[in-house]
């Protein structure tokens, strides 16, 4: 039975440079890419060269980002784990910390604590067909997984990427999507809620893509991330297609403060999302009554 994978490194357990796990490691913004009107991707490099060399993470993990003077927020990795010289974080301008982050410029300093949380079971699903379903900024936590799968493409079966966004302009990683659309070993289907004049692909919610996706639920695994309402209907659709409960893998998100299982904010029933999540199979989620409503 498939379960979410345990990472090799986890902040506070196997990886923590100073004695105090609440103190972040400084990192400098090297580059900022505008993804959508309210989303930017920040490329960061740790100031401590030795720490930068030893730093590694696995797809699905996240970090706590400190904007000095504003506070701390949990953000998922968006870059490839194979990329050793920098990390990328894709951030929507929503709250106090992310708002302050959007005001940052290249050369500014941030604090990073991580990697935290568990990861997508990419080793365990080798040989299987992979279906990635994501909505809006939910593509960001899946991007490391997609990049790692594409880097080891022959280890996996068919690869489907289903992506939904509000408008064509609200799609993250348009430069990646263009590249992926040209590859013939990726089935990329995109949809938007509201199309513009240039849009020639599907219009509607992401579940409308399933009718045109000729995927075989046997020997397949689905990785999903997106808004809660999307997750709910995608899961219903996947179950209807015949995906088994342990082959539907989701990354959950919760309000978080500490990232090390102490502050109590991210708890769903008795499970702390920051240390035991954020990646869960649908079967694991069913043991949590708070998620059922």
């Amino acid at each position, binding site marked *: 039975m498939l379960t979410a994978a345990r990472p090799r490194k986890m902040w*506070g*357990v196997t990886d923590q440079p100073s*004695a*105090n*796990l*609440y*103190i972040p490691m*400084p990192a400098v913004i090297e580059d900022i890419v505008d993804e959508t009107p309210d989303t930017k991707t920040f490329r960061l490099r740790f*100031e401590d060269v030795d720490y930068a060399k030893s730093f590694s993470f696995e797809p699905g993990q996240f970090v706590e980002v400190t904007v*000095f*003077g*504003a*506070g*701390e*927020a949990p953000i998922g990795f968006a870059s490839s784990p194979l990329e050793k010289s920098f990390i990328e974080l894709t951030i*929507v301008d*929503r*709250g106090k910390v*992310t708002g302050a982050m959007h005001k940052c410029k290249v050369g500014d*300093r941030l604090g990073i604590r991580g990697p935290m949380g568990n990861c997508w079971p990419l080793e365990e699903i080798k040989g299987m067909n992979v279906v990635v379903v994501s909505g809006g900024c939910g593509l960001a936590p899946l991007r490391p997984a997609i990049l790692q799968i594409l880097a080891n493409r022959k280890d996996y079966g068919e690869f489907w990427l289903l992506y939904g966004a509000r408008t064509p302009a609200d799609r993250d990683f348009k430069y990646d999507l263009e590249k992926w659309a040209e590859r013939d070993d990726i089935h990329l289907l995109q949809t938007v809620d509201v199309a513009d004049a240039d849009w020639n692909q599907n219009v509607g919610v992401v579940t409308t893509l399933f009718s045109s996706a000729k995927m075989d639920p046997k020997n397949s695994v689905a990785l999903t991330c997106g*808004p*809660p309402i999307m997750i709910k209907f995608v899961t219903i659709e996947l179950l209807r297609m015949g995906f088994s409960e342990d082959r539907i893998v989701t990354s959950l*998100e*919760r*309000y978080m*403060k*500490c990232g*090390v*299982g*102490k*502050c*109590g*904010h991210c*708890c*769903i*029933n*008795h499970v702390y999302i920051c*240390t035991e999540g954020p990646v869960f199979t649908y079967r694991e989620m069913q043991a949590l*009554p*708070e998620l059922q409503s």
Partner: protein
Amino acid sequence: MTVSDTYILKKSNATVFFAGLAREMRLIAPKKCFGGDVMFDLVESPEDIVWDYGHDIYPPKRFLLPHQEDMFRYSDRGKLEIRDLKDAPRQAIIGIRSCDVKAIRFQEKFFGGQIVDPYYSERAENTVLFNLVCNKPPKKECFCICCDAGPYLDSGFDVQMTDLGDRFLYEIGSEKGRKASETGLHMLEPVESKDIAERKRIELQADSLFETTAYFAKAMTFISWDDVPDRIWEELGSTCFRCAACTNLCPVCTCYTVDDRPEADGSFVRCRSWDSCQYSGFTREASAHNPRPTFGSRVQRRFYHKVSYQYVSRDGTHGCVGCGRCVSACLTKLDVPSVLKRIRRSMHEYLPDEQVTEVKP
């Protein structure tokens, strides 16, 4: 209780005894504060210790997990400077009640484990607890006897003291307690069999005096398997004022929030302060999505954490020590015994006398 670890400390010697300890660490004990209330506070002189106090509504957990705690100071002007503000003074909490000792042990386990919270763990490491057993329940709201948290502790105490009139029975329960007793070792006298007999009599008598009961057994099965009807939670939640007195006064609760506080010199202090799962903002995400949108869902959350089997198997004990503070504090009877009683009745019609006092759905 092994007799070799049990001594007698004469009350006439207690002041000198703890004055010796005060030379090694700061003392925290119940003392008469402004206005005449007895509360836990730093005591300058052991003479200020009030030995015959009842119960402090403000739990002594604040000496290990302060209401607001500065974590580290940073300034980012050209060069990033981070200074750890971790502060773990050696301290003894004297006269703490058994329920609060049990709660602190619970918190120590929670903040320790695989991932160690350095602030709490170091403070707990430097703290010695001298619990004073309640010869009778200090208030009618107490129900530690339902929670394996008192009035006597079988284990987990550093030093357990029983008031035997003109003298204390002084039981040492840990290496830390033994070390803290060394300064006054010559004042610890051998125990006599009549003292042991008196302790047993007090224990039996105290056990018989509890008025409040909490129906943990049934509530635990119902809450753990999500068998409590949603309408019961909503009915309970409908009376909540969201004041969070229940969680702030709970000696077991640990949740905190983190803020960056600007300082006059341009630096910032990252500080953490108590937070409560009873606030609607506790789980509200930046997208405005709130996984616990209703009062009922938040009350359910609190009780799931306190009594569910899943947490018991995780923490080794349930998250209530029966101190009765939520009973004293909650204006709308969302305290542990009342809610558990409501859950016990949730599958049945009310008994005739209950219909008068409780809200019918």
